[in-house]
């Protein structure tokens, strides 16, 4: 398995006046090969949870194991954990800093794996670093010859985001975590980023964990979804099953995909149509059922 969490709790400012319980007794296993979705209202604890996954926050109580590495204070394996479990933050394009695209992408690689020296024989040579950067750029759909020497700040929003993602996957993480990867992009940009993530699942990172507010996006991509509310996992199941619980989700200020809304409304009328995230297939089944009933 990829991530194993047991009884994880976290409190911000545990001794201060602004004490806030962000996570309560989370127990969750994410398996290798999953495309796992996390949804929840702003402030529900989603970000606190995923920041534990690559040891940006250390567990206060409970245990956590990621890619076979126990996340504990003082562990010498944390750098290697961060190379194995890549994290793409929300609006990652705001975190670009390199003078060139190549420099920006190589940063994490040099930092987590290191250059080859006498002290670090397992490090990478300059040539190897260049090859890895080139490979990462090609995976995110940016031509090395065209973009490597350009300033990341001159690129479009969608291109910047690709550079930022390349800077994470350059370490070939087994697990890739993305916090609202399509947020703020136009419809075409959204589609491209999601396609990119699906491609990465096939090539570099076969476990994907994605936070999103877009329920269609969750329905379309995820095999399992956890719903977080007030620091607790309140539901964890397939999207098909999850979106039948409309009332519970609306109660948590969450949306459901339009197809699920229609399905649930029809079910109340005694018309049972199986959920299908493909609008076309779903519409055809609905039309047939209703026309069939009328006959």
């Amino acid at each position: 398995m990829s991530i194993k969490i047991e009884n994880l709790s976290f409190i911000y400012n545990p001794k201060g006046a602004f004490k806030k319980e962000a996570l309560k007794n989370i127990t969750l296993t994410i398996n290798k090969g999953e495309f796992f979705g996390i949804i929840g209202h702003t402030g529900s604890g989603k970000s606190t949870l995923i920041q534990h996954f690559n040891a940006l926050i250390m567990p206060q109580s409970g245990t956590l194991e990621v890619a076979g590495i126990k996340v504990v204070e003082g562990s010498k394996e944390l750098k290697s954990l961060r190379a194995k479990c890549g994290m793409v933050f929300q609006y990652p394009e705001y975190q670009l800093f390199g003078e060139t695209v190549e420099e920006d992408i190589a940063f994490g690689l040099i930092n987590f794996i290191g250059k080859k020296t006498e002290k670090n024989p397992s490090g990478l040579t300059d040539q190897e670093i260049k090859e890895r950067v080139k490979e990462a750029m090609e995976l995110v759909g940016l031509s090395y010859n065209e973009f490597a020497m350009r300033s990341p700040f001159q690129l479009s929003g969608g291109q910047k985001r690709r550079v930022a993602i390349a800077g994470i996957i350059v370490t070939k993480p087994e697990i890739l975590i993305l916090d609202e990867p399509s947020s703020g992009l136009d419809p075409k940009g959204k589609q491209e980023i999601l396609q990119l993530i699906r491609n990465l699942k096939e090539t570099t990172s076969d476990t994907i964990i994605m936070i999103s507010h877009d329920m269609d996006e969750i329905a379309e991509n995820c095999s399992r979804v956890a719903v977080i509310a007030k620091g607790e996992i309140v539901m964890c199941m397939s999207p098909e099953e999850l979106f039948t619980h409309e009332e519970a989700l609306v109660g948590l200020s969450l949306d459901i995909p339009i197809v699920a809304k229609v399905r649930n409304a029809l079910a109340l009328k005694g018309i049972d149509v199986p959920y299908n995230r493909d609008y076309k297939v779903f519409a055809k089944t609905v039309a047939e059922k209703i026309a069939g009933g009328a006959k």
Partner: protein
Amino acid sequence: MTAIEFKNVVFSYSEDGGTENNIEPAVKELSLTIEQGEFIALCGHNGSGKSTVARLMNGLLTPKSGEVLAFGESTQNKKKIYDIRKDVGMIFQNPDNQMIATIVEDDIAFGPENIGLPREEIGKRIDFALGAVDMLEFKQASPYKLSGGQKQRIAIAGVLAVKPKVLVLDESTAMLDPKGRREIFDVIKSLNKEGMTIILITHYMDEAALFDRIIVLDNGKLAMDGTPKEVFARQTELAEIGLKLPRATKLNSYFKENGLDLGEVLSTDELMEKICQLK
């Protein structure tokens, strides 16, 4: 009354200290009239020129050729530029970049102080503006502790405090979650009911469907201009310029293809109403 008028406007970043790579004009021969009190969604994919058009409306950018008039005054008239910016307020995308003070009240006071209003009037304006966005109880709060939707409401209040006639929102809902987006929509809808012209830039067509008029830009030119019904009837063209139909309209078009005719549908609420009315 005409609020904003574009007359054959051409704008290019190349000679205005913009990037060297962008030599093609960002706005090409654009003519457009916006009447006072309209409720408009301005749409287009990334790079279509929509943010440039927004910045031309209150003289943050000025045309290379052609003319932009705000309430009859040219944005190139330097003597009138403060009046124009007072009349045409603008809200940007990132709520975190628009806060300047450590207390909500001070943040709202910035605009009224700038136009030299007396102290007593500033107090009234703050209460009016916070009331309009339903944030009065946060008067003494720190903006940094608010949610994204609340911060955007504070940003709107900051602009409202100078009592503009037009409010331009440049993708101001793009970084918000669905709840925050609804909060902003409710606020601008009620401002429009009281007579304010609203222009929201967005690429969420589900959101655009809720406006009276949709203006679509493509490659710096006017591609479509009409009611949501008129614009969404041109599905193929929309797809070609990288925009999608609202989800409900899309699903409804598949129903129709398969012989289930529910009539016109522009929003999720409309579709659900029609589904519930089925025999």
